[in-house]
């Protein structure tokens, strides 16, 4: 059985033309004009029980929009979504008890007081018995190493500590479906790793279906075997991540800062130019030839700085798109 099933899903944002001024905006309670912005363009996919799927795409591709629809925050313009047999936008209690949405840049924690108070509130909100609550909390506190931060006001936590508390608050009721929107946003490398390990552990332990967006390649390679790629609202890839990387990430990126202007055409002779901004340039070069090409660049041009980077997810996505 599929945990999540999405068919020809489409979402157009209706952006109302707000009238200026108080009377204009009050008038718009009763009548209004709007524009449509197509954010998700007939996408279909299925996610099985216990599957951990990565969701990628460039900025504005429609990832967050899709997650909001799946969590029931947005009503689709057309198409169907079924999660564990529920239609999300009806926001039925039984549905809400089985899912969770975590957005890296939002918080559900009460800001001025310790996170444990929000946990207690969620215990009541989700109707957890004291026994279930203690058990679940104990487990999360241990896995997320939260013990020392439970009694600290949330506003005094670091971003990484807060993110872990955020995850705990979202998972107390052990949702079977977990939607994560950039859960590692802004975290340092160590913290990213911890959050990743936790997500994987939660997925294994409860056979939870997880859909996760990220611009961080490490997140995806560590967690997801399968990825969905969105481009301008359309689903352009649904499949194995490894194959994707093998096919498209055979290159590394050399980032060069020049002393003065160097025309991109001269660089193109050495490797594919990925991007250029004034005196900076990103050049894509096959892995095997990295040192040779770097040396060549250094000797032929007035280079102020040169670094070698892994291609970003967005880069890979862009490549796939340009080839398809």
């Amino acid at each position, binding site marked *: 059985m599929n945990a999540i099933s999405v068919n020809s899903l489409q979402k157009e944002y209706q952006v109302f033309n707000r009238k200026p001024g108080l009377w204009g905006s009050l008038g718009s309670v009763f009548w209004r004009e709007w524009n449509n912005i197509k954010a998700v363009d007939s996408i279909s996919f299925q996610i099985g029980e216990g599957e951990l799927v990565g969701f990628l795409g460039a900025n504005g591709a429609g990832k967050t929009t899709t997650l909001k629809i799946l969590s029931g925050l947005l009503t689709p313009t057309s198409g169907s979504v079924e999660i564990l047999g529920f239609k999300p*936008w009806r926001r039925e209690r039984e549905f809400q008890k089985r899912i969770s949405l975590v957005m890296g840049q939002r918080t559900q924690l009460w800001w001025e007081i310790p996170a444990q108070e929000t946990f207690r509130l969620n215990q009541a909100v989700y109707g957890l018995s004291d026994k279930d609550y203690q058990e679940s909390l104990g487990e999360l506190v241990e896995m997320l190493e939260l013990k020392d931060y439970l009694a600290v006001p949330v506003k005094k936590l670091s971003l990484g500590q807060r993110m872990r508390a955020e995850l705990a608050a979202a998972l107390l009721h052990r949702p079977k479906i977990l939607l994560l929107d950039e859960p590692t946003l802004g975290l340092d490398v160590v913290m990213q790793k911890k959050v990743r390990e936790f997500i994987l552990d939660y997925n294994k332990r409860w056979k939870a279906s997880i859909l996760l967006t990220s611009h961080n390649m490490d997140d995806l390679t560590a967690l997801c075997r399968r990825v969905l790629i969105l481009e301008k609202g359309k689903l352009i890839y649904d499949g194995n991540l490894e194959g994707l990387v093998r096919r498209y990430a055979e290159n590394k990126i050399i980032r060069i800062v020049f002393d003065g202007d160097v025309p991109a055409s001269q660089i193109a002779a050495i490797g594919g130019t990925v991007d250029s901004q004034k005196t900076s340039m990103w050049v894509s070069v096959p892995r095997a030839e990295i040192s040779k090409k770097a040396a060549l660049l250094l000797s032929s041009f007035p280079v102020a700085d040169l670094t070698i980077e892994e291609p970003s997810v967005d880069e890979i996505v862009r490549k796939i798109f340009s080839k398809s």
Partner: protein
Amino acid sequence: MKKYLRAYLISLQETLQRRSSFVMDRLGGIAVMLSLYYFWKTLLWGHPSFLGYSYSQMLTYVLGMNILRSFALTGRGWELVGEISSGKISSYLVRPMNYHGYALALDLSQKTVHLFAALLEIGALLIFFHPPFYWPKSITAFFLFVGALMMASLLFFFLEFLVSSLAFWTSESGGPLFFFEIFIQFAAGAFFPLNVLPRLIQKGLSFSPFPYLVFLPINIYLGRVSRGQALQDLFISGVWAVVFGAASVWVWRKGLSIYSAEGG
């Protein structure tokens, strides 16, 4: 039920945590109370009564206003406007909870703290200034007052919720709420008894829900309303509460459907 109790407690805790903004709130209220106190004291000096209020009744009206402002006219409208325009309400919409009930629980907890503060302030004023204080003539009058106070709180909650929900349409600006807050203090009698106003305006206001928020509850306390009339007032304010309760739910739903179409 338990979730609303939790919400009540958590909000209580937060209010106590944010002591400085709470104290600023109270200081503002004390300043209003003291200036009105001295204003009426000076104005009524040597007059046995004014507009049918005895000297002690008028000064008690001023103290009573502090109670009503603190309990009935206190709410979290600005928080709601902020949560709507920042998208924070999304975090409630995905959880199995009723936002109206949740907001009411949070409101009640703020009201509790403010009520305690107001009682302390008035107690202090009674001790230090010995104003001629009007004590109710019967226990019934007192209970009718408590009933009117509860009704007024509920009515104000729905009114404020309704106006704050307009943030779904007005986006960033809390313009309607700002206007509402100022207007309601005049129309409810939270600056002066409504008897001060021209007859025609008084008449007009008597067909509106506003006098039930401050003016009528205090007049019930002051025994200026017969028992039968007080019961009738209680009933009418209950009807207003139902009307605005339904209206606020309707506007909230409509707002949510726009929220779901527009962004979230």
